[in-house]
């Protein structure tokens, strides 16, 4: 059973999730003693492609075509499915990123493959069966899923698996699908990226604030704290509903699910729907003026106090610690 892994890039550079999926797939490949082949689509330079060898890919299939420079869900899905068939892979691994979520089910459907979406750990493989742990009930629980199809797909949750350099080398090969047969009916018109901001789903530290902040004009101190920590900013649902912050920052059961190393919750009560989106964070710090706030029950560290007093002091203390 050989393994194929799809790696995503942004403007020619592999994303953090790309190294995560390669490291994850490499561990599986080692366990079942097979080779790992990666596939990249878009405009990525040779040395960047070959660099995947460091993480354990032995070969990289490179699909470089102008028309594929930006993401086209249908076309990408067809190419990856074709690569699964032509490499004879029985397992495909990709990231459960925003694009991955669109791609994985279409690829799985083409291959009549079972799909473990949001996988959190390495799978257990037993002959033709594969079981893997995934999120369920929006992080309020986990499910162990068994895939019984001949071909299988795993979409790995971002931040769930650490990248590991194993120090190998990879050969790069051109993979040339028949472009004319691909579906280009959805076309990217524009990409808007806040380049100076850290992407929330991939962030290792998240500074999040809620209705306790009183109004959008008070987010300066949140951004400053996030800056000092190199963190992404997030918020509770009422905050984005009120338009204080964009919807893309809303975490929780009906927002983005995050699992950073450190989640700092400021002026957020800790409603069950909010906790669902953040409870898999490794360390949780809560700053709230109400000692009875439910968030303290799931926190590792807490400060009972007024955010307007505590946050600037914390930022100062962190600056001192970092020597800024």
């Amino acid at each position: 059973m050989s393994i194929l892994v799809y790696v995503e890039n942004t403007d020619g550079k592999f994303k953090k999730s790309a190294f995560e999926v390669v490291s994850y797939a490499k561990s599986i490949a080692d366990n079942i003693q097979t080779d790992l082949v990666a596939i990249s689509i878009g405009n990525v330079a040779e040395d960047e492609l070959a660099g995947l060898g460091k993480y354990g890919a032995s070969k990289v299939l490179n699909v470089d075509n102008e028309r594929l420079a930006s993401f086209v869900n249908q076309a990408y899905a067809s190419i990856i499915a074709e690569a699964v068939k032509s490499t004879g892979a029985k397992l495909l691994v990709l990231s459960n990123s925003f694009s991955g979520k669109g791609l994985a089910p279409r690829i799985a459907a083409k291959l009549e493959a079972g799909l473990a979406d949001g996988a959190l750990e390495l799978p257990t493989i037993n002959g033709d069966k594969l079981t893997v742990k995934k999120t369920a009930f929006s992080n309020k629980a986990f499910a162990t899923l068994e895939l019984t199809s001949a071909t299988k797909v795993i979409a790995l949750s971002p931040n769930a698996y650490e990248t590991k350099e194993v120090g190998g080398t990879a050969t790069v090969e051109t993979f040339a699908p028949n472009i004319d047969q691909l579906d280009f009916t959805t076309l990217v018109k524009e990409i808007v990226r806040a380049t100076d901001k850290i992407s929330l789903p991939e962030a290792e530290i998240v500074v999040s604030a809620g209705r306790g902040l009183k109004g959008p004009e008070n987010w300066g101190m949140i951004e400053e704290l996030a800056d000092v920590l190199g963190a992404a900013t997030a918020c509770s649902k009422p905050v984005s509903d009120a338009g204080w912050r964009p919807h893309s920052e809303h975490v929780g059961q009906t927002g983005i699910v995050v699992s950073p190393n450190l989640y700092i919750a400021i002026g957020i009560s800790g409603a069950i729907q909010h906790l669902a989106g953040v409870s898999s964070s490794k360390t949780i710090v809560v700053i709230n003026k109400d000692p009875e706030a439910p968030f303290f029950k799931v926190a590792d560290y807490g400060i009972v106090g007024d955010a307007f007093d505590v946050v600037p002091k914390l930022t100062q203390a962190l600056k001192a610690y970092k020597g800024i």
Partner: protein
Amino acid sequence: MKILVCISNVPDTTSKITFTNDNTAFNTAGVQFIINPYDEIALSKAVELAEGGKGTVTVINVGDASTDATIRKALAIGADNAVRINAVPRDAWFVANQIAQYAKDNAFDLILTGRESIDYNGAQVGAIVGELLNIPSVSIAKKVDIAGDAVTVEREIEGGKEVLTAKLPIVIGTAEGVAEPKIPNMRGIMSARTKPLDVLEPSTIDVLEHIVSYETPAPRGTVKLVDASEVEKLVSLLHDEAKVI
């Protein structure tokens, strides 16, 4: 415009999630079921697009008779008619095939789903339906505009958004921002009782996966409180103990 909205019947967001039968089944005792919140956004968008006689909205659910209350709520919000495929949902492949079969027979211009269901969090059904119907799909849309058969969708990407153009027919998975949730009014609730709800028998589809068992997250230890006047202590704890900075 003929619009199909796929709705899923999920535990209320305040539900405590527990399991029975040796952690192999979700414990539904005392749990309220609701329309999946993302599907409610999809439905609200569909009703908005169809307003003023510009289209019709059909909701479809794969479920047993216990989901009828949720389907009636969707009719109260403004769907014109409903279809229930009479089967307990198994995996995403099974559900998507049932929906795709119905959609094939009834030629819809637009198929909306929520971005994912809040119970199994698969985010699979919409894209599989797109694949089975051989039409495009967009997952996690934050904004949807339709003019004639031209579709403009804003899709979430890491650290930003992507705007893309497409043509009907298409499948779109909706997230927050796509529409304001519509609250059923008295007239909606009254008329929902008499709107058509057809029950169709499922096609035979083999499943590709199943859940073996569940577990709930291990509880965290008790919180360590730091005094508000000693924030430096928190910095040390995060560095020395938690090792996260």
